[in-house]
């Protein structure tokens, strides 16, 4: 166990330079790239030199690059992400109020991907080179090629406009939005805590379409991985042994193969989470979901520079933490990992 702990310690230490590099790349992209961020921010409008200069001073762009870099890192360490030009509120505070919405969507999206992707992948592997396998592979490649925003819109056309089953946008419906008291920010959890069936139903009906849309983005990736990983496992000697012993095929697949097939899928969970965050940008935009990804898009449209930078830094830190947790989890469940 102490070796696992040492590994966790090492991995924690490794996260720091990784994060520092990521933050530096973000800084370089936003500040040192060709083009003046201030005039890009005020985008094309006819603005006098004085106003431009005042913005420059306000955002600290009048200082040398190294001083700016120091301030940038210092701000992040202190938890000071600047203030939004649009709302005047601290960026970090705005991000934190929107963060649970994104996470809630991501968790349900991941769940959808797990159900569709993993099941179909395992199914295809156990029927390799048969019709089911080919069908599932086509499904995977198609879902891989599906523009998320288009899928979301098609769902809206069909399920919201034509059938009227689900609401088009938001997290919670009209009147409930005013009555509902959020405790954790995770609405499904809140509704359960309040023991409010009506609210729960409303929240879930808002969640269904965005979650499926986002989940489809990962289904292809996860399905292909599951199929490949399962094929690999089913080829191994211990599976042949189990079959030779007369273990029913059902048990071979479910008990012997499945658990080991899961391991490589968990390794790429961090990467999948990045894909999920990227997909969240489009899903949140289409469904007017009040998360951090749609906040970023709206900040870009409004050219709200501190909010853009703050959002990216926030996402970068979050992704690093997810990767850290995945690695630790991986080392715990798979004893073969070298420390």
């Amino acid at each position, binding site marked *: 166990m102490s070796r696992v702990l040492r590994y966790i310690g090492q991995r924690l230490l490794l996260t720091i*330079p*990784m994060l520092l*590099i*990521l933050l530096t*790349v973000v800084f370089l*992209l*936003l500040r040192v*790239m060709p*083009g003046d*961020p201030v005039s*890009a921010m005020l985008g094309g409008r006819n603005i006098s030199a004085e106003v431009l200069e005042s913005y420059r001073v306000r955002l600290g762009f009048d200082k040398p690059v190294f001083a700016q870099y120091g301030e940038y890192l210092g701000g992040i360490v202190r938890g000071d992400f600047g203030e939004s030009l649009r709302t005047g509120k601290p960026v970090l505070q705005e991000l934190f109020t929107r963060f649970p919405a994104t996470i809630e969507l991501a968790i349900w999206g991941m769940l959808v991907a797990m159900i569709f992707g993993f099941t179909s992948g395992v199914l295809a592997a156990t029927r*390799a*080179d048969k019709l089911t396998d080919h069908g599932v592979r086509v499904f995977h*490649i*198609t879902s*891989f*090629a*599906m*523009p*998320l*925003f*288009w*899928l979301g*819109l*098609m769902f*809206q*056309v069909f399920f919201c*406009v*034509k059938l009227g089953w689900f609401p*088009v946008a938001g997290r919670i419906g009209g009147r409930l939005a005013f009555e509902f008291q959020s405790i954790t920010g995770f609405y499904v959890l809140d509704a359960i805590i309040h023991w409010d069936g009506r609210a729960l139903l409303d929240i879930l009906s808002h969640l269904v379409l965005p979650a499926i849309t986002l989940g489809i983005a990962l289904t292809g990736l996860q399905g292909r991985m599951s199929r490949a990983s399962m*094929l690999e496992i*089913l*080829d191994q000697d211990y599976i*042949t042994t189990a079959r030779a012993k007369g273990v029913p095929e059902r048990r071979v697949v479910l008990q012997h193969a499945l658990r080991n097939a899961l391991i490589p899928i968990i390794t790429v969970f*961090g*990467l999948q989470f*990045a*894909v999920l*965050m*990227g*997909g969240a*940008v*489009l899903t949140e*935009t*289409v469904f007017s979901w009040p998360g951090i*990804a749609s906040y*970023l*898009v709206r900040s*870009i*449209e409004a*050219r709200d520079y501190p909010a*853009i930078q703050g959002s*990216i830094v926030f*996402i*970068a830190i979050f*992704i*690093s933490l997810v*990767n850290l947790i995945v690695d630790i989890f991986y080392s715990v469940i798979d004893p073969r990992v070298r420390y």
Partner: protein
Amino acid sequence: MRRSKQPRNSEAALDTTPRSPLAALFLWVVQVVSRSRRALQGQTILKIGIVIVLAFVVMTVIANIFPSMNGYDPALYRDAPRLEGPTLSHWMGTDQLQRDVFSRILSGGYASLIVAFSAVALSMTVGSVLGWISGFAGGWLDRILSLTMDAIYSFPSMILAIVLVAMFGSGIMPMVWAVGFVYIPTYFRVTRAEVLQVRETTYVEAIRAVGASNTRIILRHVAPNTINAIMAVSSFNLADAILTVAALSFLGFGLPPPAPDWGFDIQNGQKFLQSGAWWLITFPGLMIIFLSLGFGLIGEGISDLVNPRRKRKRKKI
């Protein structure tokens, strides 16, 4: 098998090179065509993919040379009735500015194709060269490059592309830079991994013993061996790039209106979703899917070709 053959083949081609460059080019084309025809035998997935992509390229080129070839101009307002569903004269309906959707569909792949191909070419070049250098040089340069690339790679590519385009300004070139930048780590990782593998092989050791320079080893022996992997990755990348470009256009960072563009047309159609104008978003979306699917199938086919074991794995048992 294929891998070890490749250097010998190119060596043989070198011997028979005629003096005239034009004849050399001709010979090369004949060689490539005959070789690829042989390689394509039995590769149904690959063939379907190539046919789809070629069809899209031809369609887009023709539609951009003759914009109103089906009788309607893609960018001209008041060319057709307003917001009408598919009819015989307007196969895919018309939009709110009285334009024929079908004619916009035909030429709407212009930006997607140009940006996807240029961006992938850009990232392929930069990423592979950095990967070769990093893998071959090793040491602190390798560590710093790897860490940086890993950091960029871990970041959501869609978000990175959106932010970069927002910084560079909208249009074709900014999209090429943004999308191209995002994919650099992918090629870096693939080539670096291959180089590390190839570097340890005995034939590289042998050629080094003979006294070949590092540049020669990279260009003539390491690089050709990484090309298979790069080809498969780049096809999948093209499929992804088509989606990224569509998303950027959808968010309003693409071509300025009234230029026809699938992603932008979907954004436009979103406004009329409540009134049930399904044709405005359905058809552009289907085009994006088919084109992306075409590249995906090519990637799939190349992967099968490069690694024949991937196919029919269980037949052996």
